[in-house]
């Protein structure tokens, strides 16, 4: 596809009908949490969009983010969007290797200077001048600084790039930091999650193509369309929380009846992500639907935030309010959400180191 060609031209050339495109836009609007009525406006803007250059750099990561995104790469909404970008450098996916691939990176940066979107997955090692993680003999730190210079915007993909993630977990031997700790002069969108939900990245790209700007972000640099509400706010088990009905073990009567997993350590009330609505594995389900609490993977320092099976009120005093509300079974959902948000920073400071007993609980 030519870089000057619009999406509408591309569609017509591929023999795609207007209704197919409208249908894609309705689904895109749905997953971007836009009102259904926005689909028509979106179709018009997206139809005129041009194809941007995208450079994707992998740093201290496990390739889980790439796995997550490419698993959605089927003839679908995501496929359409991926067809709309020019992915000029991605080590895992590209055919070139060695000097060839480094040349491709340099060429893409030079030709699209000031215009390309830079995607980074993985945290950046800063210990020993960044020597802990190198590509082609250069440190991630050095590569990031160079690539960021010509980027129009940066997408920090996954909790590692967004917040440091697992490499940054105590005791952080490599001095891992987030992209935003290094780059201060470019717009950065954090798409957190371990891994992030595939449609969130395509949603952000679709927003960029539709409106020519980055979506509205929350205090942690995450797009509000996907991270505007907690897992708890949108959880189908939420009404049971409001009724004070909780599973006490993973195989009791409450667990069988699908009651709230709060007391089994679910981090849904303090975790902002779209799992409860977009779901996983081709929209099959999400962890809570499979009977396990949320582990809070899209929040900063989730790995060091106490045990996954400890109820939220346990690790920090400010969150005890939640426990009290839950125990008497009041319908104080909204108030609790506000209380949680306000007390999250305090809770973070009070988090304890995870011990074996936490996991065994």
């Amino acid at each position, binding site marked *: 596809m030519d870089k000057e060609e619009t999406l509408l031209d591309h569609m017509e050339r591929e023999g*795609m*009908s*207007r*209704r*197919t495109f*409208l*249908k*894609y836009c*309705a*689904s895109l609007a*749905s*997953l971007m*949490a836009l*009102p*259904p*009525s926005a689909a*028509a406006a979106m179709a018009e803007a997206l139809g005129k969009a041009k194809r941007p250059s995208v450079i994707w750099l992998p740093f201290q990561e496990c390739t889980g983010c790439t796995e997550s995104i490419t698993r959605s790469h*089927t*003839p*679908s*909404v995501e496929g359409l969007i991926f067809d709309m970008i020019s992915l000029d450098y991605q080590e895992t996916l590209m055919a070139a290797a060695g000097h060839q691939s480094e040349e491709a990176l340099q060429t893409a940066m030079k030709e699209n200077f000031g215009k390309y979107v830079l995607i980074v997955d993985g945290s950046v090692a800063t210990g020993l001048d960044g020597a802990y993680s190198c590509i082609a003999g250069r440190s991630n730190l050095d590569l990031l600084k160079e690539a960021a210079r010509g980027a129009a915007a940066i997408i920090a993909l996954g909790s590692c790039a967004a917040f440091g993630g697992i490499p940054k977990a105590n005791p952080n031997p490599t001095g891992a930091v987030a992209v935003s700790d290094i780059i201060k002069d470019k717009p950065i969108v954090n798409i957190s999650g371990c891994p992030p939900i595939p449609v969130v990245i395509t949603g952000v790209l679709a927003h960029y193509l539709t409106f020519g700007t980055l979506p509205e972000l929350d205090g942690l640099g995450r797009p509000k369309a996907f991270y505007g509400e907690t897992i708890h706010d*949108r*959880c*189908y*088990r*939420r*009404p*049971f929380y409001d009724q004070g009905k909780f599973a006490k073990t993973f195989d009791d009567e409450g667990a*069988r*009846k*699908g009651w709230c997993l709060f007391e089994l350590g679910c981090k849904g009330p303090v975790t902002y992500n779209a799992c*409860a*609505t*977009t779901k996983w594995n*081709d*929209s099959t389900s999400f962890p809570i639907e499979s009977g396990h609490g949320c582990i809070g993977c899209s929040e900063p320092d989730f790995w060091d935030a106490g045990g996954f099976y400890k109820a939220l009120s346990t690790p920090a005093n400010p969150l005890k309010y939640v426990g009290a509300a839950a125990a008497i079974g009041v319908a104080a959902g909204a108030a609790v959400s506000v209380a949680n948000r306000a007390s999250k920073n305090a809770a973070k400071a009070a988090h304890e180191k995870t011990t074996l007993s936490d996991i065994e609980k």
Partner: protein
Amino acid sequence: MRSINDIPIHVLSPDETLTGQAEAVLSEIADLLGRLLETGEAGSIDLRSLPLSPADRDWLNAKLGRGEVEIVLEAGGRSVLTETAYAGVWKVQHCDTEERVVSEFIEVAYIPAIVRPAGADIENAYEKLQSDLKQIS
């Protein structure tokens, strides 16, 4: 184990997982239908964005029932638009080419918007038909 009945499976009645959310959706549909009558403005509800349990979905489907019309759209996968027992209330399900459901809506409209062909498409069709006719004659 002597028989299949010895397998300890506990069967739950679907009513036990009803959350009450589906009732709220039903009253929103009623509001949208009222607005359609008054102003002619269509509305829709994105079912994917709501925290409905499987039992809630079943309850809502049972309440809405089936009407006389079903429209099947073959565009980048199959879409099925079904009129419910309430005229003007449609269930819309879009699937992709691999038959996975990509979005689901309740549309409140005389005819769901996607069914109506665009003016530009009719213009193209008119031009093409005229040129086809010329070739025949």
